[in-house]
């Protein structure tokens, strides 16, 4: 391999990085962490509703993954395996804390984050409206049973197929579809006030 080619940062697949990590290459595992920490954090945050808890769960997810890496046979995708660890940790976390997910209203939607995502013609009023809508969605999601909430989160924000979600949650495909449908139907009722003006506009 030439030096120039070696100097180009190669994008290795998860499978390659996992294989290297298993041989003790910590840096390869760190690349996996860098690649997946944001999605895992987002999953934990939307499930638990609190930034600090989500951070702890994210950290614990990768810690457990690292320790159990030798037992990972590669039957499923590495990301699916990570998601399953994170989902189990979230469930345990909620059970341990004996509490429903919280909605971090003041810090749940950061105006700076929104500003970074905004389009060129968005005004401050638009940003505020988006933040308000985000809070409304978070509140509505809070009222869903955890299974429905997690199914919708995995479907909407992580783009998993229904079958992948069924494998992750260890339940039949029909159960996943029922959870997503019931969750969306409940959200439609909860968010009815916000939906009406949008439809009319």
């Amino acid at each position: 391999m030439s030096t120039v080619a070696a100097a180009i940062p190669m994008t290795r697949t998860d499978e390659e990085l996992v294989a290297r990590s298993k041989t003790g290459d910590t840096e390869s595992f760190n690349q996996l962490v860098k690649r997946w920490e944001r999605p895992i954090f987002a999953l934990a945050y939307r499930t638990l509703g609190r930034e600090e808890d989500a951070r702890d769960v994210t950290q614990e997810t990768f810690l457990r993954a690292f320790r159990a890496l030798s037992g990972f046979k590669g039957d499923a995708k590495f990301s699916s395996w990570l998601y399953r660890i994170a989902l189990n940790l979230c469930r345990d976390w909620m059970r341990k804390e004996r509490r429903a997910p919280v909605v971090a209203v003041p810090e749940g939607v950061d105006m700076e984050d929104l500003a970074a995502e905004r389009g060129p013609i968005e005004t401050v009023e638009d940003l505020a409206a988006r933040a308000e809508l985000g809070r409304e969605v978070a509140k509505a999601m809070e009222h869903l049973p955890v299974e429905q909430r997690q199914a919708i989160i995995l479907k909407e924000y992580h783009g998993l197929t229904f079958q992948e979600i069924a494998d992750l949650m260890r339940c039949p495909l029909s159960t996943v579809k029922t959870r997503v449908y019931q969750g969306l139907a409940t959200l439609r009722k909860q968010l009815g006030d916000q939906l009406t003006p949008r439809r009319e506009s």
Partner: protein
Amino acid sequence: MSHIADNHDALLDYLYEEGDPTERLKIAKHLQECAACSVAVLEFQNVRGMLRYWTPPGSALGFRVVQDSAFLPTSIASPTPSAAVNQEARTGAWLAWLPAPSQRIPWRQLGAAVLLFVGGMVVSQVTVGYEDGRMVVSGRSARPAVNARASSITLPTQAVSDVPSSNPGVTPQPVPADRYPVDTELLLQRVRSMIDQSEQRQQRELALRLSQVTREVDTQHQADLLRIQQDFGHQQEATMEYLVRTSGGAK
């Protein structure tokens, strides 16, 4: 075809573009004819649209795993220290989570590394300089060098990290010119492949977006038609009532 609003599986497959494409096509045709189902689909699409506004905070994470027990006593930390991490430190595990290097600097290790490096340079009498835009590493061993040029290692600047570890007492040999061949063909192939993949991905996204927009316009059109029909029906009823009233009054 039965109403999609009553068939949850079909509704979800259509919304998320999963399942049999033929079935989805049938549903799309049905939606063009059935206003009630169009409204139901539109409402679910609006819910999905609202879900996009719920974004997690963009806080810095930067977790890293290190396998160095020397870090453990004082420096186990995450970007935001937590009870879980402190517990990890107390148990004395060999595995530690550290923030990204930009957030935390191990001063003791850094100092030791600098001292070691300087000491090594002094012992091996290595000098580092630049000539013609290239880094030149010159070493003087105890054995006098016949030719000063022969005892220097000249490397391209970008290959500094590939400098082999020096062995005191052995005169460094010049590195052959073909030690770092520039495999431009491989590089070009890789760039071309990346560009192709990017273009294909963009085309797929564009096609997906176009189909979504078309579908949204169709469903909105159906909903508008339904509302117009309802309004028209109300108007007709009102007109009829008016006519009945006025004709009755005329009698």
